[in-house]
């Protein structure tokens, strides 16, 4: 067992956990943040993506103890002061989802992509999102939503 401290969606968290446990289950069970989804459990689908220091990680493969001292953002932490993030708005205005099960991972992966590259081309979006899977087939709309969000963020700067 190990006690760790981290920032979760801008709030400090202290938790004592077995050091073999993955972040996904700590988030979903111990911390009851169920917006981070479980899809494949092997780092392949991206449904469980969260941000660790703004970098997208597959939380099903990320030992929770490695979050110690880090800043974690889950889908629940993206809207600020009741204001949706431009990506969330763009996913809505483009209907870039159907069942919505991949959506949390998609949005967080796109978030970090835009931090790295604020004006990505279609090809760059595809490259950055390639390892996130959507069975409902929302890819085309997700690409457009990311472009729209990039535009809005650019105008806000």
């Amino acid at each position, binding site marked *: 067992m190990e006690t760790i401290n981290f920032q979760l969606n801008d709030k400090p968290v202290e938790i004592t956990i077995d050091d073999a446990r993955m972040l996904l289950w700590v988030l979903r069970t111990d911390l009851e943040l169920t917006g981070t989804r479980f*899809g494949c*459990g092997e780092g392949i*689908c991206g449904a469980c993506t969260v941000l660790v220091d703004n970098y997208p990680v597959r939380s099903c493969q990320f030992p929770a103890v490695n979050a110690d001292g880090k800043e974690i953002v889950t889908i629940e932490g993206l809207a600020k002061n009741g204001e949706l993030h431009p990506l969330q708005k763009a996913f809505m205005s483009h209907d870039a989802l159907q069942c919505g099960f991949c959506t949390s991972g998609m949005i967080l992966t796109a978030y970090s992509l835009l931090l790295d590259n604020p004006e990505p081309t279609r090809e760059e979006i595809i490259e950055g999102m390639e390892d996130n899977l*959507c069975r409902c087939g929302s890819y085309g709309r997700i690409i457009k939503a990311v472009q729209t969000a990039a535009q809005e963020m650019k105008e806000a700067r």
Partner: protein
Amino acid sequence: MKEKEYLDLDFSDIKTPFTLNRREFIKAVGGGIFIFLTIGDPLDAEAQRRGGRLPTDFNAFLQIKEDGRVNCFTGKIEMGQGVINSIPQSLADELDVPLDSVDMVMGDTDLCPWDMGTFGSMTTRFFVPPLREAAAEARAVLIELAAERLELPVEKLRTEGGAVIEKNNSKNRVTYAQLTEGKRIERHLEEKPPVKDFLEFKIVGKPVLRRDSLEKVTGEAKFAGDIRLPGMLYAKILRPPAYGARLKSVDTSAAEKIEGVKVVRDGDLVAVLHTLPDVAEKAVSKIKADYDLPESDVDDKSIFDHLLKTASESNIEANGGDLEEGRELSHHIFEEKYLNSYVAHAPIENHTAIANIEGNKVTVWASTQAPFRVKDQVAEALGVSAENVRIIAPFVGGGFGGKTRCQQGIEAARLAKLTGKPVQVAWGRAEEFLYDTFRPAAVVKITSGITDDGKISLWDYGVYYAGGRGSQQFYDIPHHRTMTHSGGYPHPFGTGAWRAPANNTNTFARESQIDIMAAKAGIDPLEFRLKNLKNNQVIRILKAAADKFGWTPAKGPSGRGYGIACGTDAGTWVAHMAEVEVNDDGHVQVKRVVCAQDMGLVVNPQGAKLQVEGCIIMGLGYALSEEVHFKGGEILDTNFDTYQITRFSWTPEIETVLIESDAPPQGGGEPAIICMGGVIANAIFDATGARLYQLPMTPDRIMQARR
């Protein structure tokens, strides 16, 4: 055998009810369980709800709340297909209330009217008509109540925006909420008023964005795995190494050593439970078990011969003319065989459920497409009356037919009973592959012929084990026969309905064969189809697709990589055109897909487009890469590393043409997937001259066909 039941129920393409009366509809969907109640039946909604039949009391479908908002109750579930939008559109128009005043209550067996299940593209065709009838009656009753309140004859009144209004004096009005004060409406009409004409609709037919997206982009949306109950345990169940293996002996001692782990055994069901799901998972992996493995040694290569050998029953789906005569008329005869592999549903959300038993009340939240079916199954498994079982389907993370079976809900309920605690069962990805009810592998054999002027003169078609949906051809062929072959249960694991069951297999085979004949005749494949068609609906969508695509005639293979295919499913007609590029290593990039769809009146054009796009993207998978690898009952694919579904980089430009129509609305969730095998096979041929006879069309198979 259980699997067989699923095949029978889900594989048929039930025709639209608009040409049937209610009694015939009852026959069409398998009868016996429905009872047609006359209007004014004394049974209250509650009793009707429980009885496995559609209620006639409109209160079962809708409720006007004190604040004026309207609850719409439906046993349908939302799994991404968007009925959460299209159902309230229809209700709002019929009842004359604002669209955003309608709240959806879905998939809850205690609150919603009985429903067979959400599959077969049936919501719009079968649930919406009785919902509209209910709304029409409710509206008429509200007008009567208003007439009494306002002391005016009903003829002087109209309805709009949730209020009854005097026609000549719009200030004189009373809202629905004022009339009902949140109470149940007890009055019913002797004679049911007619529903509105489609032309009167103001909300139906307008594009509407998804109403569930806010919850889904913030992570607030609750799926079955997100339900938390005090004292709940997470279960992991011991699984066999192969489908159908029987447990001989088990040693759970190592699992029991882990702190907090509880092991339960009930016959073949061996499960570990813990307050943390990941600890339960670790514990189950420590269990040692011996199994008797099933005999079957058929694998993904030998399965096709096995199917042909096993087939013992056949059925004529359609025939006409005389095959011998057709043969004599034919200048060229084509004898071909098409294969397709098992494919998985593979929704991103795995099968998940949580069960809670309080006193004699059993409640199960489950990712299921058929809550009322699960209700009976859970009742049977626990030996309790179905009245005491409540199933709730929260948001479902994709279904595609795979969540019509709800084994996990029964498992959760059994474990809740055994432990006395709320229990969650959430399958892992390997369990998902083991227990998925795959789209069956299938073989299609076609013998066809053309005359020397390019008319199809012969069509002799036989499909093995896919099912009959979509098997009937619609070209103008004088001598034809269509047969389905089946018998026994040749599959070493579960099979079931997979988005547009059977139709993907049948449309791939038919449209490939048509193309083969067009190429031999030296005629452009679009022209060849038009030349052999009399069905105006198909002709119209083919032309619409060609228009959008910018199709110019050329005989195949033209080197351009253009493909074409058409077909019908769930009452809807579709035509696809695609452009592909095939690399030197056999890798296919689909650059562009155009889909023209005639689905009758389009309730929500935005939703219809989403479904078309989803079908095209999902269909790329079964066309190019999806194939379950197995040896006997052992499923070799356990995750998305070897089982490849469509990814971002495969995404083509997609253009959808929805044909304007005021015919009754038809299915929209499945039709646009049926052409994907055929349209890509034909485009690959056009690009390379290589003809592919097996799905999926992997780079290896393409390279082989090129040689």
